């Protein structure tokens, strides 16, 4: 479903991604781990299409199409979803209005009819229950005045509502206490399906106890330096990232 080949990206004068290769198939859950500043969030935002980065080399194929050639909203309509590490606050736009506008925009792109008010309300109710969220939150402005946990839960709610094919979760566990982490993870697990791929970007192994990945990749210095199954995450937990630094150099040298 997603094929990243030799991806290089820079922000202003700094090269952040230095040749990423990654292949994710439908139905799989991949975890991308790495120390701070290794380029994890950049990778997530490059996939979503943020314009602050310049792609200098490489290609990304998504569902057989050139992902990098698509506009931000086009990617969303094609089923790419990014759960933000720092969800943006938009005062004056209610969550409900925002969600409905997003769904209808995506439907329009796909030449599907607009969602009826009734269907929308029913769908929203279902997803709210799934995530244990109060419906009063839907009348509040997007993310405004939300606690850290509420913001993250709201991201997963959007993901549940928009039903993406490829979901990228950027540090979704940061700032969550253990209860919130469980709820968010359950929400994500409920969305696991054979048609959907999920990339979990995280610094800590903790999240992976709840969202068990099929594959784990370690990103360091803008490259994937190691890949393995879930045991790699445990190994990292055990030894920390520092032991990888030397490994990264070895790989780079090789």
């Amino acid at each position, binding site marked *: 479903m997603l094929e990243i080949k030799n991806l290089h990206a820079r922000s202003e004068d700094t090269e952040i991604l230095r040749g990423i290769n990654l292949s994710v198939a439908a139905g799989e859950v991949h975890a991308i781990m790495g120390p701070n500043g290794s380029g994890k969030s950049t990778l997530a935002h490059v996939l979503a299409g943020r314009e602050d980065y310049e792609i200098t080399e490489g290609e990304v194929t998504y569902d057989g199409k050139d992902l990098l050639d698509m506009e931000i909203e086009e990617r969303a309509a094609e089923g790419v979803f990014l759960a933000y590490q720092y969800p*943006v606050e938009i005062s004056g736009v209610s969550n409900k209005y925002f969600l409905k506008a997003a769904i209808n925009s995506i439907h329009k792109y796909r030449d599907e009819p607009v969602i009826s008010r009734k269907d929308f309300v029913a769908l929203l109710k279902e997803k709210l229950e799934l995530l244990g969220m109060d419906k009063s939150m839907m009348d509040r402005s997007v993310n405004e005045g939300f606690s850290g946990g509420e913001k993250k839960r709201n991201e997963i709610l959007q993901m549940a509502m928009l039903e993406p094919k490829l979901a990228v979760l950027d540090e979704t566990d940061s700032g969550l206490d253990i209860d919130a982490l469980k709820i968010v993870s359950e929400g994500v697990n409920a969305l696991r399906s054979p048609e959907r791929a999920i990339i979990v970007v995280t610094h800590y192994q903790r999240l992976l106890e709840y969202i068990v990945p099929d594959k784990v990749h370690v990103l360091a210095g803008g490259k994937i330096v190691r890949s393995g199954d879930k045991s790699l995450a445990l190994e990292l937990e055990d030894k920390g990232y520092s032991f990888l630094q030397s490994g990264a150099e070895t790989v780079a040298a090789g």
Partner: protein
Amino acid sequence: MIATQSDAYQESFAAFQADQSATSPAWLNEARQTAWDRFLERGLPTRRDEDWRFTPVASLAGRNYRNVQSLSLASDTVETLLQRAKLDDDFHRLVFVNGHYVEGASSHQDLPEGVVVENLASSIREGRDLAEQLLTQPVGKEESAFTDLNTAFASDGAVIDVADGVTLDRPVHLIFLSVEDGPTACHPRNLIRLGNGSSATVVESYHGRDGDGYFTNAVTQIELAEQANLDHHKLQHEQRDSLHIASSHIDQKEHSRFCSHYFSFGAELARNELNCILDGEEIVSTLNGLYMPTGEQLMDCRTRIDHAKPNCNTYELYKGILDDRARGVFNGKIFVHQDAQKTDAKQSNQALLLSDDAVVNTKPQLEIYADDVKCTHGATIGELDEQALYYLRSRGIPESLARKMLIFAFANDVVQGVEVPAVVQHLEAILLSSHGLPDV
């Protein structure tokens, strides 16, 4: 030069006097004459006046406007405008056409005991003290050319007088319509007084018909006694070729609360002034405003808050969205007098320019003479938030729609401060349609 500008009003003042002086009480004739003399002496403001630096009003205000003395009600027009203006059948309603009260269109029965809601002409006829008191005292801190002009022509408007401890449960809706042909002027004078611990909600709406342009020159005087609570809304929907000049003067006593919501959509040139004097401790005042000029419109919003006593809080949020060749002016002054320790005053002014031909002039001012105060003002003028735009787009919303949503959100922020549902719905509908947004 000054004389020529005021000349335009000579004829109508003579006609007005001929029509009114015989039936008006002596104190009123005297107040009118004093104001008129001062107006003649001062003349209309020019751009050399610091207060009018960005608002060239002389040519519009110097037109030959005619006062409408007797109404020939073009009922279709009135009916159409009335339907447009009405918000909720449940509201008490006073309707004024070209400055004159129209009983047939108004309805204000079942008022709680101790509440007077009537038109100014009736108040004067009845010899009520409120009319004499407010019409003979200075308007606000200082008279201006336009308040003088209003006093010179003062004959009708709304009067709301609420006795101590009374809550006026339903909002009072004041509707001002200009329907007559040709350049006409009207000078509504509104008086609102709330007794100790009383509360009320007032909505003022201004509408008019297409024609040769007209001039609305409104003055509203508000007195809030201790612990009184007033929610005041103004919806300015004048015709595109009209001149709208209005000022509200609010005098607040201890523990009172005043909340003003101003929404400006119409007129060729609209100038709205709010002057609040906080003459007591523990007062809370909130001034919110939204102005959205397009085409060649010029909207000038001015607020002045005088913190005269300690321990008062004021909050001010004004937002502007300017398109085409529109011009916007915001001037907000917070004046903290020496005695007003522990003042907490926050002012924020934000503007969005949607066109490179639009201009906004902002002048937020602080004048502070007390040392233990918290005063902040912030002014931002700029583009839509790029982060928010990216966020919306990454959820599949096309850029053009995302931009509209953010413009809507920018404006909606002010609308959400309104607590009257009918007013909120009215404003949301305007915001959605004016930016071609889909309904919720």
